[in-house]
């Protein structure tokens, strides 16, 4: 076994595009999917805008047997997985059932489904709670439903580490490929733009309260005031490189390096863990900082967190030492879906030799970042670093590389 793990298929459900092609066209053009919330009445809440996936009608894509038992989050994930497998040219039903597995990340579970059933429990009683509540709301449901739909019974699981989880899932998928699995479907899709999900996100105190979609999410800008949340994400198909080559698959790129660290307790004087995660991921890929062509930033848009990320990047790459971008300014932060979507964007940047822009942001020069703003930048991208942080101290970093 060659040990290299490659991406052979991608499926995207993003606020600025349903499907990888639409997402990438919008992202290249700097077209945002952020706007006023339509999925519930948000007038009475301090934050009222989000990145919602447009034009998704579940009935057009999924059988009614599945509609009855799934949250919106799972419906989006099932569609993304269908597309990723089709893109990879893989029909799991034709593989031995234990050769293929599913490992996704989740950060909230099926909140909208859960909210409805809790409402029923509270107002009508336990007999009115759906039997499907037993799984429709919980973290592992996307993994379970994708696995059942495609008969993939190999190593499977779910990773829960907020936004960092999207990279942690891909890393776990790589481990299983290295252990001999033929195909792992991985990534993350989250969707909890409902009143229950919204108050849970508000409680974290990091949401923007601006009502202007173009001014609400401004990472690395002096005007940064929190983020806009979004729904959606990406599902990727990972395979062993040699096996993928031998079946003639198209390779988007290699998952070449990964590391995760945890921040120390606050106020203890020890440095945050992000820099170490980046350095360890580079070591894992056997690459030096100067080998990295672009960084897809976590982009929290909370000044203290922006500073921590900028300092980590400057420490590793030098001031303005590497192009940095945050296309998530066009989608909002997608929790477990954000980093897999950034990985897809990184792979397409490698394919198309260009870096998509960070929109709306006027970078605060004090951060010392070479932020790609306004329009895409042409660049011969061979390697990309994707960074993701989860609330509570999670730091993860992934290096993707052009497949030679």
């Amino acid at each position, binding site marked *: 076994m060659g040990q290299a793990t490659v991406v052979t298929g991608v499926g995207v459900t993003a606020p600025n595009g349903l499907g990888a092609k639409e997402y990438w066209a919008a992202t290249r053009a700097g077209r945002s999917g952020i706007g006023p919330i339509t999925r519930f009445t948000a007038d009475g809440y301090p934050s009222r805008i989000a990145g919602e996936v447009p034009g998704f009608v579940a009935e057009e894509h999924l*059988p*009614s*047997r*599945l*509609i*009855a*038992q799934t949250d919106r989050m799972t419906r989006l994930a099932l569609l993304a997985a269908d597309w990723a497998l089709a893109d990879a040219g893989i029909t799991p039903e034709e593989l031995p059932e234990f050769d293929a597995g599913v490992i996704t990340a989740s950060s909230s579970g099926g909140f909208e489904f859960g909210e409805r059933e809790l409402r029923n429990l509270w107002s009508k009683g336990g*007999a*009115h709670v*759906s*039997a*499907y509540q*037993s799984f429709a709301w919980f973290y592992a449901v996307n993994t379970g439903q994708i696995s059942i739909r495609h008969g993939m019974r190999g190593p499977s699981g779910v990773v829960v580490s907020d936004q960092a989880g999207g990279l942690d899932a891909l890393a776990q998928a790589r481990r299983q490929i290295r252990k001999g699995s033929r195909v792992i479907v991985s990534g993350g899709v989250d969707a909890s733009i409902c009143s229950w999900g919204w108050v849970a996100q508000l409680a974290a105190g990091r949401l923007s309260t601006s009502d202007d979609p173009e001014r609400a999410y401004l990472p690395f800008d002096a005007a940064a005031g929190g983020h806009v949340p979004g729904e959606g994400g990406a599902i990727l198909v990972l395979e062993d490189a040699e096996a993928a080559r031998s079946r003639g698959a198209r390779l988007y790129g290699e998952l070449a390096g990964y590391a995760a660290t945890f921040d120390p307790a606050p106020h203890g004087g020890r440095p945050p863990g992000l820099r170490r995660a980046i350095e360890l991921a580079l070591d894992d890929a056997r690459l030096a900082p100067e080998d990295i062509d672009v960084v897809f930033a976590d982009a929290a848009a909370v000044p203290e967190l922006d500073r921590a990320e900028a300092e980590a990047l400057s420490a590793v790459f030098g001031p303005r030492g590497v192009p940095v971008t945050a296309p998530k300014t066009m989608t909002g932060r997608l929790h477990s879906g954000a980093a897999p979507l950034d990985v897809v964007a990184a792979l397409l940047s490698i394919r198309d030799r260009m870096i998509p822009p960070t929109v709306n942001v006027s970078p605060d020069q004090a951060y010392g970042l070479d932020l790609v703003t306004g329009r895409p930048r042409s660049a011969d991208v061979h390697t990309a670093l994707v960074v993701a942080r989860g609330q509570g101290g999670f730091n993860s970093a992934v290096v993707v590389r052009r497949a030679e």
Partner: protein
Amino acid sequence: MSTHAFTIDDLKRILHTSAGVPEGVDFDGDILDTAFDSLGYESLALLETCGSIEREFKVSIDDDTLTITDTPRTLLRLVNHQLVAPSAS
């Protein structure tokens, strides 16, 4: 107690909303004696469906009964038996 009998059309309607319509089966045809398994409804789908029937028709279907209810016909019989049974008072 509901005043009308529990019919196959009631069951189809409730299956539709509770568990969705199976694929590759003539759901509108005669399914009275087709096993729920063959229709694509697993135990959880039946549990959800029976919950709806219980609420709408004010009957009770216990778990033991559910495990031996293998076709629409047996489920109809079970529910209608409760609907016509004289009340204990």
